């Protein structure tokens, strides 16, 4: 078993133009920064990206939008991004907006081998267009399908050589559900340790879901809204 790669360039080397990628993170928190940089460098394009947000102009998936690498964005919230808005309004970028819980659950469903499930989010809205509606106990639900992705790219705090992952605080967000959903899953971690060093009870993503892992470097971890209080 060898899941360990040297760096992002090696881990993403077989990602090709036209593929569908899942990218973990919420806002700018818990982003696979190293892989995004490597994807920008590699210059693949025509990508379909599934990610809760589209980054900001000069960070996260925003960097890939700048290079026009993204053909279609599947996300729940895409504010805070002028270049995104420009491409959307000009028709250069295809966008599918999905309720945040539905987005997370469609990833999870893939990782749970569950092709479809019913959820109440979006009943009676634009999101329901073309979808089966069914009533359970007097309440209406939409049938939603599991996502498929050629690659899932996630960021964790710690990982071991078997691919077991532990996330930190709210940098967990979409990372665990996407890690389960990729046809191939790449995990970049701040700390890569030998198998056996992580407490088996405390693992968030079991290694069976993770195909490649590497220790990332130079995490910027940009803060979108720096809110503080003063000491008394």
């Amino acid at each position, binding site marked *: 078993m060898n899941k360990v790669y040297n760096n992002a360039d090696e881990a993403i080397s077989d990602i090709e133009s036209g593929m569908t990628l899942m990218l973990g993170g919420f806002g700018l*928190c818990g982003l696979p920064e190293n892989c995004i940089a490597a994807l920008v460098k590699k210059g693949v394009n025509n990508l379909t990206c599934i990610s809760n947000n589209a980054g900001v102009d000069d960070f996260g998936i925003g960097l890939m939008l700048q290079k026009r690498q993204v053909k279609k964005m599947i996300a729940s919230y895409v504010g805070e991004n002028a270049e995104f808005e420009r491409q959307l309004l000009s028709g250069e970028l295809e966008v599918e907006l999905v309720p*945040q819980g*539905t987005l997370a659950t469609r990833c999870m469903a893939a990782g749970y081998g569950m092709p479809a499930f019913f959820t109440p989010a979006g*009943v009676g809205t634009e999101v329901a267009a073309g979808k089966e509606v069914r009533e359970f106990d007097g309440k209406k639900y939409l049938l939603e399908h599991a996502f498929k992705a050629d690659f899932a790219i996630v960021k964790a705090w710690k990982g071991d050589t078997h691919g077991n992952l532990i996330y930190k605080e*709210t940098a967990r*967000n979409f990372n665990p559900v996407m890690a389960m959903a990729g046809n191939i899953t790449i995990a970049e971690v701040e700390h890569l340790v030998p198998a056996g060093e992580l407490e088996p009870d405390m693992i968030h993503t079991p290694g069976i879901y993770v195909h490649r892992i590497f220790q990332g470097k130079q995490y910027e971890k940009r803060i979108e809204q720096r809110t503080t209080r003063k*000491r008394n």
Partner: protein
Amino acid sequence: MALTKEQIAQRIAKELQDGYYVNLGIGIPTLVANYIPEGIEVVLQSENGLLGIGPFPFEGEEDADLINAGKQTVTTVKGSAFFDSALSFGMIRAGKVNLTVLGAMELSDRGDIASWKIPGKMVKGMGGAMDLVASAKNIIVAMQHTNKAGESKLLKECTLPITGLACVKKVVTELGFFNITENGFELVEIAPDITVEEVKAKTEGRLTISQNLKKMIL
């Protein structure tokens, strides 16, 4: 006098009960956290994966890995728990959140809410709002009664794309506190120095005045 945003939040905070799990949306709803009544304990849920949102960090102690759903740096409290986005919306859909406070662009007198899109002008996305409104049993909307042009945002029918149908039961605006009943908006508390006539003039949707109309006390 019309309520300030802080006062709207302050009034909503009175709906909190001990032991409540509460999801506060971005904007006025976030301010509710500043007015949690003394002596009760509530747990704030952040849909990016945190139960037990604490106050903003002290300067210099910001942690990029610890943010709320508004992407603001926050802290934890005693008893906090982190989880992933699927479980976060799982607990929301399963009805485990006791109270959800949200902003809105428009509200219909049947409780439809529009909050995520202005066609041709603004498409930021619905984020978690559609999941929240479809799931919560207890939703209070915090919003301005009229737009900048002075037009009512409490309508017969929403004109903007819907976030959820017939889901809002209560709304607090700068003019007062309204229940949403089968007869439309029901004014139950009126803001200090606001007249019923002003409320009527500014409400396009069906409006009734409660038999027990009270002056709002903050």
